[in-house]
């Protein structure tokens, strides 16, 4: 049975993946790394990256690669803050559910 990934969770996953690279990373690589963690269509990522960029959680810069342009995404301090906030909520959320599933008292 599939577990639904909410928009907030997906944002956090993308921020975490991009946040791993100090120098930034690019669309195709981000997509592959996110897909290593959860199943999603490859065309889902672009709107997410765009929204995070508009929200100030990611910045972009362009670099030439093999004579072509390649856009790199980097996490911002605001992005790190949002990720930290989500991670904290996630810890609490999953801890409670894990306890429930294991039959432990809340």
């Amino acid at each position, binding site marked *: 049975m599939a577990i639904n990934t909410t928009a907030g969770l997906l944002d956090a996953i993308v921020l975490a993946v991009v946040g791993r690279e100090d120098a930034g990373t*690019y669309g195709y*690589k981000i*997509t592959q790394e996110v897909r290593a963690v959860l199943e999603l269509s*490859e065309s889902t990522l672009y709107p997410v*990256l765009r929204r995070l960029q508009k929200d100030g959680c990611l910045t972009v810069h362009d670099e030439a690669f*093999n004579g*072509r342009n390649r856009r790199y995404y980097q996490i911002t301090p605001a992005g790190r803050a949002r990720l930290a906030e989500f991670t904290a909520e996630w810890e609490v959320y999953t801890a409670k559910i894990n306890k429930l599933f294991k039959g432990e008292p809340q």
Partner: protein
Amino acid sequence: MKRYEYLSQLEALLSALPEAERRDALNYYEEYFDAAGPENEEATAAELGSPAEAARKILESEGLPAAEPQPPAKSRAGYLWIALIVLVAAALVMVLAVLMLGLIQPGTAAESVSVATSFADEEPQTEASGNPALTEPSTTESAAEAGSGFTTMQTSFARARAQDMTLMVDYGTVTIQTSDTVTEAELLCENVRTDWLTFAGEKQVRVTYKTPANYNLSNDPEPHFTLTVPTARSFTFHKLNITAVMGNVTFAGDIAAEAVTLNLDMGNFSGDTVTAGTLSAVIDMGTFELGKLNGAQTIAIENSMGNVGLTVDGGADEYSIDIQSDMGDTAFNGQTYPGGYLREKENARSLTVRTAMGNVAVTTENP
């Protein structure tokens, strides 16, 4: 499907987006295909899902309604139909133009004669001492034939200004040629309406010929814009930008520039010899033929409908090469490559030629 098909369908489906947003989205997916590897084009397109799916997600996130879904089997045939209709329309326009030209009034012949005489009478232009950039362009205009509304005019630009040259022409041919007898850049505009013609730029030259929207051009004689510059020995453009919406672009002789940018909607480009650091050409409908391109570090040619023929200097191993035709033959140094020719190299001169519908033949001077 092929990369070009995916991207052009996506572009069409994103037409509701503002230009900048649409560009960004297309660039993202172009880079995606690049990063996945050109040999994996079909697989990448399959993994991305349909362009309609990607477009829907993008439009939804921007708060716009998604476009009507197209039945996939139909869209491929649909594009061929559109191409056919455009071809037929273009053919009709050409036929009308030829018919109209055949009915030119005798008065027009007199106009050309008067231009020839004013040429001979003209004093050689000298640059004002000190500040060539601020010299007003000198112009001679022959009197318009009463009622016809079209003139022929000749303008000179100081060398320093002319080196940064932009010509944007809605209708008419553009010719760049060299001559031993000019010391500045001279622009001859024939069959033009002066109120559609603008000259701008202080340190550069910007010539714009803008025809009004919905104006029926089929009754007008074809304008011709001829720019004559000193020979490559003594004159090199910093930037030569030409946008021609309907008309051929021709380079005669040896043209030298740091960067050449060509944008043709409906017209052919032909050139003898160009020496340029960067050559970028985008053609929607027309052929691209360049006898010889010397010294280029970056070459990028895109043709939606038409053949490309090009010879470059140097040897094949000096370049990082990406030559591709979606629906035509690809030939490199005389050999045919059905799937296109890709040989990427780091730190090499870059040579990219892409056509959707047309043949490509690229040759290097030294195999």
